[in-house]
């Protein structure tokens, strides 16, 4: 950077080249969002669109005896009525577990499952038509908890899954029994976690346009994975994928809610084709909650063996996840809960049993920190409890278990870089831990916890043999560069990051770039925004595409300046013969480069090296990643012992994300993680009464507001990841897992009681406080009696 900056002063009139990466860069689409110009799916101009509406099941578990749509079809203004009859292709993100239909066939498995849909000329007519559809049900027993669904004799939700268990995982790595035997202390605890939801701000919506003349379908939807939507819709509609185009408009958050094709997206396409026109299917907040796909209700039984030094000798864990009515990502989630035990601390031996259970609740799915968040709370909590027994400080017990990268875990995961030690150092120092821990006034507490996450799954969900990511850069006569990517920017800032990487390579300002993301007619296929894959994988592809373009520009400059390519240096807005004043401007280099060939398009790809793709055991595909990001958090709370109310006073988060390509966006992502972690820790939970969701609105599903937001200090620690673009790795999910356990540990110090799970809602905290007082009274009474 210094070299180029100093060189820039040589030539008159040549703009100073700069480096675009590593800079605090406001998002390139930020102005559109804050001014309201950005068009989300529901804002798309579609004056001719019919209104779609869904008839949902009033029962949580029932056979569909009959459906009569004749009266609805006869209603004037109704253009299409469809039912499960109209789509017999099951879908699901995993090719091995497809058992969901866009509209129920034969049975309904959860309250609110779609049974029929209509497209009509206006909303009133659509709603009236729904009321005319007659469905006869024969109700079945409803299983809301995993235990009920697993009970002997329970009706099977899916005939091929005995005991309603979607997947049982049994994995043991290392010698667990020997590890337990070698421990100075073995402790086992059970934890319960309420189900939470993503509560992304944008409700679900799809706009589907079917052109009856060409037979082609264009779908615009709220997806994080436009490619999977494309694939699934063409499969479910039995269409040639070439006749389908999927466009991703602006997206108001995802967090995993939109990481698979969702039933309403297929339904909108089915309606559009049936009506031979355009259909807008806008879901309400309540319907969006029922689509769900979030973190399941989870029970964890965890046993840890520990030496007096704090060193962990073995782990034995059992996890039961209430998965909801269909497969979705369920198998992946139950595998991650085990796999992510291995790569945060050194684990000599781990036994993991996991049960993913089908229940009569909306399907769960991947949610930020996929599979790892509840287990992380259990693990960090039990580690703290055991450290207390030994009189070890919470930092000391964590430091006793750090590994030094490069590191290979017992389940064959390879960690190339890990700066967790630096993260711990920073939060310890910044929070004043050493001088304050244990000395805070009553009702106040400090807690620390660590967490981590992958930078993209090394094995994609759909194996095609293609690279993991592809980016095109287009350069035309005007000198502007268009970056074409299928990666979905859903608010996390991926479009900005990709442009920054390309601009960095080419030494150009961001203003030279445009990013087109997520239009299957224009952009190369991308697996989508999930598993924190985009920064590293798509970033590497963008880097490669930019390097290719730079090679071509250097060659053009060399030709023009009549020297060899090795004699040319790229200064961004100029190309110069090294060691001389001879240079040619970027515009002229572009002209030369386009001579003969015409406009240029380069392609960059990224494939995870084979040796980083994991082991060979069953489930080995879940866990491997080209890089892992790390975080440590300290949370300070105060607790009102009269009301059970927790106030988060302050948070310190240290993040190892490799080189931060956009530090501003990284800080934003970490703050978002804090809020999400606080929400799960303090007050977010779903609840079902007689199978009906009780909290399907944003008053009863309590996401923390800005009033609850504490001061948050974010530190990005020095780190360089050789597998990442420009040294970068994931920065959005790794910090989340540390928040709930750090917060819970702080509460434990404040009130002297550790609650066995989440959320720490005021009623639960107060009940725990009352239980503690009863116990204290009993103890003193007994002592008095003696």
């Amino acid at each position, binding site marked *: 950077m210094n070299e180029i900056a100093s060189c820039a002063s040589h030539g008159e009139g040549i703009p100073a080249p700069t480096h675009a990466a590593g800079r605090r860069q406001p998002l390139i689409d930020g102005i559109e969002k804050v001014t309201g110009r950005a068009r989300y799916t529901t804002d798309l101009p579609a004056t001719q669109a019919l209104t779609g509406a869904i008839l949902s099941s009033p029962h949580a578990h029932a056979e569909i005896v009959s459906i009569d749509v004749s009266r609805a079809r006869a209603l004037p203004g109704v253009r299409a009525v469809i039912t499960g009859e109209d789509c017999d292709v099951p879908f699901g993100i995993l090719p091995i577990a497809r058992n969901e239909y866009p509209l129920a066939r034969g049975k309904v498995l959860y309250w609110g499952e779609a049974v029929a849909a209509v497209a009509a000329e206006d909303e009133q007519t659509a709603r009236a038509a729904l009321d005319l559809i007659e469905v006869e049900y024969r109700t079945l027993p409803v299983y809301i908890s995993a235990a009920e669904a697993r009970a002997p004799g329970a009706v099977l939700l899916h005939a091929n899954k005995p005991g309603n268990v979607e997947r049982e995982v049994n994995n043991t790595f290392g010698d667990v029994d020997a590890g337990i035997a070698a421990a100075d202390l073995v402790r086992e605890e059970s934890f319960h976690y309420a189900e939470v939801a993503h509560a992304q701000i944008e409700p679900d919506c799809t706009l589907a346009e079917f052109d009856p003349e060409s037979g082609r379908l264009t779908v615009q939807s709220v997806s994080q994975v436009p490619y999977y939507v494309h694939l699934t819709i063409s499969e479910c509609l039995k269409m040639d994928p070439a006749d389908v185009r999927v466009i991703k408009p602006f997206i108001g958050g995802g967090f995993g809610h939109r990481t698979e094709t969702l039933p309403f997206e297929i339904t909108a396409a089915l309606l559009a084709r049936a009506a031979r026109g355009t259909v807008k299917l806008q879901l309400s907040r*309540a319907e969006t909650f029922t689509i769900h796909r979030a973190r399941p209700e989870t029970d964890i039984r965890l046993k840890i063996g520990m030496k007096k030094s704090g060193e962990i000798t073995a782990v034995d864990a059992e996890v039961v996840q209430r998965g909801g009515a269909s497969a979705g990502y369920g198998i992946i989630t139950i595998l991650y809960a085990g796999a992510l035990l291995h790569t945060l601390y050194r684990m000599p031996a781990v036994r993991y049993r996991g049960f993913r259970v089908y229940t009569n609740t909306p399907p769960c799915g991947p949610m930020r920190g996929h599979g790892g968040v509840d287990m992380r709370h259990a693990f960090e909590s039990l580690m703290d409890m055991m450290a207390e027994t030994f009189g070890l400080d919470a930092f000391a017990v964590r430091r006793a278990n750090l590994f030094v990268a490069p590191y290979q875990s017992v389940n064959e995961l390879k960690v190339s870089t890990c700066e967790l030690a630096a993260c711990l150092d920073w939060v310890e120092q910044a929070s004043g831990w050493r001088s304050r821990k244990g000395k805070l006034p009553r009702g106040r507490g400090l807690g620390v916890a660590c967490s981590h996450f992958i930078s993209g799954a090394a094995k994609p969900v759909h194996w095609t043999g293609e690279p993991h990511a592809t980016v095109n850069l287009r350069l035309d006569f005007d000198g502007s560069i268009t970056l074409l990517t299928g990666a979905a920017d859903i608010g996390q800032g991926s479009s900005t990051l990709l442009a920054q990487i390309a601009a960095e390579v080419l030494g150009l300002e961001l203003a030279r770039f445009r990013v087109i993301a997520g239009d299957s007619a224009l952009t190369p296929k991308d697996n989508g925004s999930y598993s924190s894959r985009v920064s590293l994988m798509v970033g590497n592809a963008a880097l490669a595409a930019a390097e290719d373009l730079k090679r071509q520009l250097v060659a053009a400059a060399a030709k023009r300046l009549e020297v060899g390519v090795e004699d040319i240096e790229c200064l961004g807005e100029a190309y110069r013969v090294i060691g001389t004043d001879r240079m040619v401007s970027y515009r002229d280099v572009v002209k030369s480069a386009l001579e003969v060939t015409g406009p240029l398009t380069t392609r960059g790809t990224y494939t995870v090296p084979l040796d980083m793709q994991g082991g060979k055991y069953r489930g080995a595909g879940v866990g491997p990643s080209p890089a892992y990001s790390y975080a440590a958090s300290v949370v300070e709370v105060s607790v009102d012992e009269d009301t059970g109310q927790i106030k988060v006073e302050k948070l310190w988060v240290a993040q190892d994300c490799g080189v931060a390509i956009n530090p501003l966006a990284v800080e934003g992502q970490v703050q978002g993680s804090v809020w999400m972690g606080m929400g799960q820790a303090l007050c977010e939970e779903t609840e079902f009464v007689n199978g009906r969701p009780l909290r399907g609105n944003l008053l*009863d599903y309590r996401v923390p507001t800005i009033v609850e937001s504490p001061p948050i200090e974010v530190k990005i620690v020095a780190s360089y990841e050789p597998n990442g673009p420009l040294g970068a790795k994931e920065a959005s999910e790794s910090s989340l897992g540390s928040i709930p356990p750090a917060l819970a540990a702080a509460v434990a110090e404040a009130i002297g009681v550790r609650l066995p799970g989440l959320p720490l809602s005021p009623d639960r905290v107060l009940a725990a406080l009352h239980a503690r007082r009863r116990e204290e009274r009993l103890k003193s009474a007994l002592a008095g009696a003696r």
Partner: protein
Amino acid sequence: MTRLCEFSLRHPETIEEAARLLAAEPEVRVIAGGTALLTNLRLGLGKPASLVSLEHIPGLDKIEVSAQEVRFGAGVTLARLATVPAVRASLPALAQAALTVAGPSHRSAATLGGNLCLDTRCVYYNQNEVWRRSNGYCLKHGGEVCHVAPQGKRCHAAYSGDLAPLLLVLQAEITVTGTGGVRRMPLGQLYHDDGAQHLTLARGELVTEVSVPLPAPGMQLAYRKARVRDAIDFPLAGVAMGLRMDAGRVAELHLALTGTNSQPVLLTGTAELRGAAADAALAERVGKLVQRQASPQRTTVTTSNYRRQVATALARRLVLELAAAGAGQSRGTA
């Protein structure tokens, strides 16, 4: 949450005309700020043929301060209630209570009258049409059974207005205007303890004015609200208290609750606390009063047991807090 039902919006220019319009048809509702009403209508709770807006009626937004009382038009917004200097000076606790309602955008539209007449709330009621239909509706709206207490004969939906308890403590009076004329009554007479019919207003009647006598010198007042989030949330329980101490003894104590019953409750039995010293025993007695008279049911996602406990805790704490504040003040003026 779906599109609003179709209705005609009426804009009377006098209270009398508004009353006539309200009396004229059965399916008609008053709309002031609309923050609560429109949410319920979007959930399908009622399909009024017309809404009578109070927007064009002059004088409903008045705030008049005299030596004896403050008179508020029912149309005063909560934002004004919280910020107008005259209110903050003469009734600071009321301004503070107004600030606890919902969020800033709600308060800029929501009104004093609307808050007093707030519909009762229940997890079985504040759900959308599809949800309620699949649950067989409920006693409050369209059904026969109260899902909170299926054996009972009444609706247990909870009243959740944040201003009523303090206004009860302040012995506020309201003016009700209807086709039959104008009547003035203590605020308490606006309510009865039935979640399905918690207001005593007759058809064609509306609250037009609230008169709040200025508190006696030395009277300490406050409202405390228990909720999970410190914005947006309705009270899980709210406690308003007025306490006047004389020579270290209770001279006067009033205590009212919201969020716990189908109406705001001015607690009885507080006169017996007269003469008590401000100590733990007083807090205990105040707590007992709350415990006995609060009657939270399973109408929120938070347990009724917690709501009773937290109401008790807030009241116990508040009485000592106000006693200390009063003592501090008398020391200050001495």
